[in-house]
């Protein structure tokens, strides 16, 4: 048996045949893109000002982090660590918007899902706010808050909060009445119904809301950082483009996509698997 065969059997055992095939199929387009990119550099179809060679992207990381003295400096966000600073400030904004947006969106969403009066009061303003895309707020936000953290956070929260609010509201409304009745007949009060019926019952919808708000929020953030930011990946791309540092622009774009894939795979999908899939509340593929 050749080494290759042994390795392939080992991999199949580790991941399972179906999953392995899925992963392999999913990587094909990436491999094709990378190959074309590499060929472009070799054949010189398009000059490096348009498409920089792959190696220069790696170099850009070093250039941007020149003078950065190790992990401590990265974490304390010292000025020299530009590359990681941009990543950390984008991530920090997303994290902060979730820390604020998830609890407040869920709280108000549950209230509106429970009380018709509350829903009547909040729904129109929600539709109004949702209609204004995140980016449309940027000029106003700059006037109000200047460029920087407040502006970008404001844009993000506008996206995150309303999406989670609406998804929670719809989720709570969709919880079958019989669950509520059954908890009530066991003597459960309002709080028991909220924590044991409404919130878990609305969770499929809430998780969808969080995933959507992360997706839209991430996009809105990059746009907001370009115009109204003073740091972050969006800001980095914008400034680098102005300085004709095309490899830094490429680097920024790649990092944005990779970071999103990582959050989705490592955070949001496992979250779904551990809650609503285990409870049999969503259709499970394969």
């Amino acid at each position, binding site marked *: 048996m050749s080494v290759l065969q042994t390795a392939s059997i080992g991999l199949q055992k580790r991941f399972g045949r179906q999953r392995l095939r899925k992963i392999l199929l999913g990587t094909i387009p990436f491999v094709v893109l990378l190959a074309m990119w590499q060929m472009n550099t070799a054949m010189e179809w398009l000059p490096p000002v348009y498409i920089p060679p792959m190696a220069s992207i790696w170099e850009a990381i070093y250039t941007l982090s020149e003078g950065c003295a190790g992990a401590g400096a990265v974490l304390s966000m010292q000025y020299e660590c530009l590359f990681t600073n941009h990543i950390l400030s984008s991530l920090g904004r997303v994290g902060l918007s979730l820390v604020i947006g998830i609890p407040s969106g869920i709280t108000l969403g549950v209230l509106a899902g429970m009380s018709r009066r509350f829903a009547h009061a909040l729904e129109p303003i929600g539709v109004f706010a949702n209609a204004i895309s995140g980016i449309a707020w940027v000029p106003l936000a700059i006037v109000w808050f200047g460029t920087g953290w407040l502006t970008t956070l404001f844009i993000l929260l506008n996206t995150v909060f309303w999406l989670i609010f609406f998804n929670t509201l719809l989720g709570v409304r969709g919880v079958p009445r019989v669950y509520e009745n059954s908890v009530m007949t066991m*003597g459960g009060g309002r709080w028991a119904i909220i924590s044991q019926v409404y919130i878990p019952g609305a969770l499929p919808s809430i998780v969808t809301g969080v995933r959507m708000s992360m997706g839209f929020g991430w996009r809105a953030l990059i746009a907001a950082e370009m115009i109204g930011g003073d740091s972050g990946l969006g800001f980095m791309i914008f400034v680098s483009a102005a300085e004709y540092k095309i490899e830094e622009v490429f680097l920024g774009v790649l990092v944005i996509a990779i970071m999103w894939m990582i959050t989705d795979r490592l955070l949001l999908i496992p979250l779904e698997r551990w809650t609503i899939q285990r409870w049999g509340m969503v259709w499970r593929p394969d």
Partner: protein
Amino acid sequence: MPAKLVVDRLSHHYPDEYTGEDVHALDQVSLSVEDGEFSAVVGPSGCGKTTLLNILAGLLPHTEGSVQVDGKEVQGPGPDRGVVFQEHAILPWRTVARNIGHGLEIQGIPKSEREQKVQEFIDLVGLSGFEERYPHELSGGMKQRCALARTLCANPVVMLMDEPFAAVDAQTRITLQEELNRIAIATRKTILFITHNVDEAAFLGDRCFIFSRRPGKLKATVKIDVPREKRIWKDLLSEKAYTDPRDEILRLVREEVFDDEE
């Protein structure tokens, strides 16, 4: 000994959801269920059976007449009346064991004591080995056993059952009926069981209350004098003590259905 559940001249009206017309669902219903008695309410569909159950459970406020459990007037839902609903009302996000212990959890019973009780009822309904499963992993029959155990485990004074076996297949239904009879013997619970199935009512009930079609009135009461221990389907089908009252109930119910069609 005073009756556990007393319904006295209970009437109920409500406006129709679409037309807004006044619907007269229950008309001067009076009945009582003794301690440890298994009573069944039978009637054609739309006779107000479920309305009655919702009022008894406290999910629907009543305006005319009175409902008393253990001598206390019913005002809203409470743990003294346990309900087994027609649909599977067990929570999908709780395991079998956590569903069954839910009532005790709400009552604030400490965990160790709760676990012991829960195990007792898991064994009673034959769900041993499924403690950590989620409801979606159970069959329809098992879900209803779980719902039954959950209601029993909270130790209500009266157990109200709203057509609990209507959604399961015929084979499972027969098994569940015999199981429920066995559980009634074991726990001596006071039960009010609502059904439109005449055989089921006669098989399970010590007494059957037959309701007329809307507005629901108590039309007749039929006693079934078969000891609980003897209630097994294969023996009962040829037992006059079962077939006679069953035929009587069937006749009473059919009168209502045919009146309706004319």
